[in-house]
């Protein structure tokens, strides 16, 4: 089981903001839910409460950007693009303001159901000109997301994990650089965010079954290093399986598909994720199982790709972490 880190964003943001006076902390009534409540209390002069009014917040942040500040907007990912999409476009993305959109609770990491689950955010953000898209997959990436985001000359959307987060990596995010987690030669597995941990749970069982897996973890979704991906695809025999905490349209599965099609790669691709469906409210483990986003779903996807049944069952996989819905490291179950 990996080391668990409590509230890595809280410390990382404070350190980054205090070292960068032009960084401002914006919140929309989800301050403790986004782990910036201590920052609000300790550094009120660098904190702006914009209330539950996201349309104004996005344009206001655009104005702060025009004045040379670098606002970090904290709220749940859904609230950064669904209601204020027009403002995101006109006030932030078009003029390339250095607004850092910190989207918490990506995909099914919230039991809040449809209204809280950002399941199409990558698709939306990836199609916006001038936008950079980053995603965190472990505590080390959360700890480095502020510096990574703030290095971007323009707007950036980040999928941020909160609460108790596993540490899977020991090096910070390098924007534009994918992580190579294993260098097998049979199948390429591409994951991002919380699905990377799932793929790691399946690795030992797949090894025992004699399958050589090459595994890539993406923290930079846009811009994307297509050449590096194509090299990896060229190194495996059978094809590619993507697993994402997102709908299978427009996310990393689509990104890989576009890359393969553009290059004329003739290998098979299996895209796993939410299949043209909304999710509902429930625990992360339940939702990942129910919607086929977990380690077992990945195994089945690989079996489908190469046409072999490895006889792997849940008992063969590394133990899943079961996270309490209510705990001391989260403000509320949402």
């Amino acid at each position, binding site marked *: 089981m990996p080391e668990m880190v409590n509230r890595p964003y809280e410390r990382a943001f404070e350190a980054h903001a205090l070292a960068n006076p032009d960084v401002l902390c914006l919140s929309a009534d989800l301050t403790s839910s986004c782990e910036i409540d201590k920052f609000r209390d300790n550094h009120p002069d660098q904190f702006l409460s914009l209330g539950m009014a996201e349309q104004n917040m996005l344009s206001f942040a655009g104005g702060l950007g025009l*004045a*040379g500040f670098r606002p970090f907007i904290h709220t749940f990912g859904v609230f950064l693009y669904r209601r204020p999409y*027009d403002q995101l476009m006109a006030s932030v993305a078009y003029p390339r303001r250095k607004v850092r959109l910190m989207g918490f609770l990506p995909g099914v990491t919230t039991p809040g159901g449809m209204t809280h689950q950002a399941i199409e955010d990558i698709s939306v953000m990836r199609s916006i000109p001038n936008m950079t898209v980053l995603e965190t997959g472990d505590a080390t990436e959360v700890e480095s997301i502020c510096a990574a985001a703030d290095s971007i000359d323009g707007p950036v959307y980040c999928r941020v994990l909160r609460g108790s987060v596993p540490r899977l990596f020991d090096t910070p995010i390098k924007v534009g650089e994918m992580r190579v987690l294993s260098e097998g030669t049979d199948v390429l597995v591409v994951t991002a965010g919380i699905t990377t941990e799932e793929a790691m749970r399946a690795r030992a069982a797949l090894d025992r079954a004699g399958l050589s897996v090459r595994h890539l973890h993406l923290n930079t979704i846009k811009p994307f290093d297509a050449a590096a991906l194509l090299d990896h695809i060229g190194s495996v025999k059978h094809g590619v399986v993507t697993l994402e905490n997102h709908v299978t349209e427009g996310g990393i599965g689509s990104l890989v598909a576009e890359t393969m099609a553009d290059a004329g790669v003739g290998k098979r691709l299996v895209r796993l994720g939410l299949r043209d469906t909304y999710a509902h409210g429930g625990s992360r483990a339940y939702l990942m199982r129910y919607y086929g986003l977990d380690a077992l779903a990945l195994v089945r996807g690989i079996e489908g790709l190469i046409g072999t049944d490895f006889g792997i069952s849940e008992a063969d996989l590394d133990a899943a972490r079961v996270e309490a819905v209510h705990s001391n490291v989260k403000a509320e179950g949402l």
Partner: protein
Amino acid sequence: MTQLRNEKSVEEVADGIRRRVFEHTIRNNGGYLSQACSAAEQLAWLYQEELHLGAPTLPMIPAPFGGVPSADNPDYHTGAGYNGPAAPEYDRLFIAPAHYALVAYATLIETGRMAPEGLEMFNKDGSSVEMIGAEHSPGMEVHNGTLGIGLSTAAGLAWGRARRGETGRTWVFMSDGEVQEGQTWEAIQAAAHHRIDNLYAIMDVNDQQCDGAMSSVMEVRDIQAKIEAFGGVAVWIDGHDPDAMRAALKTPHEGKPLIILARTDPTKGMAPLMARFPRLHYVRFKSEEERAQMNTDIAGALGVDPVKLEDH
């Protein structure tokens, strides 16, 4: 306060704005004519008298469209240079309803900030002088074609400028139709919550919107009472009276944005335009006869010669 001091009065600039927009509309068989009627004094007062602006930094004859903002377009710039440099002591102005662009361009010409040739580029392919003012259009600094976002952006800019100790004010020219957008009220409550009082707006309350009279599209009720309830300060004035604008600006508004509600006539100076009511948002003549009649009648109302149509 403007550095480009010239001898014209606010009233003369306003007359010039109406004349230019009228001539343009007749020549092009269409234009945002009513907006010139209602807004001429407001924009004339802002540019000719009230705004503290530096000399333009961009060519008098606007350059062609130079591409949109992108990492691959390092030479990109907005049209704000027609309002002068963005120095700490200077005011900034957003034209929140970008549909008033034609009127704003005419104002730049009348106040010596753009050459008359600029208006000839209006809505021409490849031109930066766009129909709906874009960021790169003369006098514009942000995109406001989507209505209701201007005041929020200005509030953010004003807060940021105050934090940096800049003395320049941030101004927004607004339209009354924008108050139908919820974002306007979000902006006012946020500005009041954060005590942003270096933020000023003048709103052209002409009671008109795209579909026609606002009362027929969506009642907005008492704008002043609503602004004050959300934490701003609002003052009603006659929007064709520059003295009323001067007086309104003296209204105390510590810790709150000041919004001047300029009650205006959408056919001011061009009474024959009332024949088109309530279709005033964009005037396109239905026939050559109507165009010729309006040419003669409005020219008469403005005290100018009709446009020589055979030349065009």
